[in-house]
């Protein structure tokens, strides 16, 4: 059974909207990272779906590149979160204003 491209695009839009809502409202940097991941993965879903729809394999290569960028972003983001959490009591992006200490 084939699932139409409409459903993939719709699911991708819904995931992107949820991620955007999370980025707007959450304060914890960890949850912000998760929301950004959600948006990136919704883009991945759209890329793969339209790649299949058009019969063009470049979309899959793009999705892999996006995965690599997401992985490096997570490495740096989680490192920053852990480094901040080690010396500060609260994790709040509004209060993380200093580059040192």
């Amino acid at each position, binding site marked *: 059974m*084939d699932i*139409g*491209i*409409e459903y993939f*695009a*719709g699911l*991708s*839009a*819904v995931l*992107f*909207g*949820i991620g*955007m*809502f999370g980025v*707007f*409202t*959450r*304060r*914890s940097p*960890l*949850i912000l990272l998760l929301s950004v991941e959600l948006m990136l993965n919704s883009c991945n879903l759209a890329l793969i779906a339209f*790649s*299949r*729809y*058009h*019969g063009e*394999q*470049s979309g*899959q*290569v793009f999705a*892999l*590149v996006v995965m*690599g*960028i997401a*992985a*490096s*972003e997570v*490495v*740096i983001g*989680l*490192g*920053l*979160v*852990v*480094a901040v*959490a*080690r*010396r500060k*009591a*609260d*994790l*709040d992006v509004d209060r993380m204003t*200093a580059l040192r*200490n």
Partner: protein
Amino acid sequence: VIAYLGGRADEPTRDVPLWQLGAAVVAGGAIIVEIVVAIAAHEFGGGATVPDTFGAPEAVADRFFSRYLLAFEAVSILLLIAAVGGVVLGSRKPSPRVDEPETFPQREVRPPELELQAAVMAAETAFPVRHVSADERDEGR
């Protein structure tokens, strides 16, 4: 990381201003509605017919190593830099907290015996004897 941070990782949406919540709902909802409307307005066909090897690892690797070689190399370098950055961020020694001074201020070393001695000497002799600390002596020079 969530286990390491414990309960602090999952702070609820506390004291988020109402306009921000509204803007978030509007922005997220607008994206969803826009794309759903665009999908509904467009008539999609059945899609391309693809061979069985579509998306096979061989096909993707062929693309990666020929047409998208530059992107492949760039991502590899990006991952290397990210790995180095993660190690640097993770292994740094924790610096002292902001609210604690790095070293306690040095207490002024001022032996009371010398002042007492000077007072006794002033009382025993007719001369006004006063203890002069090292700083005052250096200033006098």
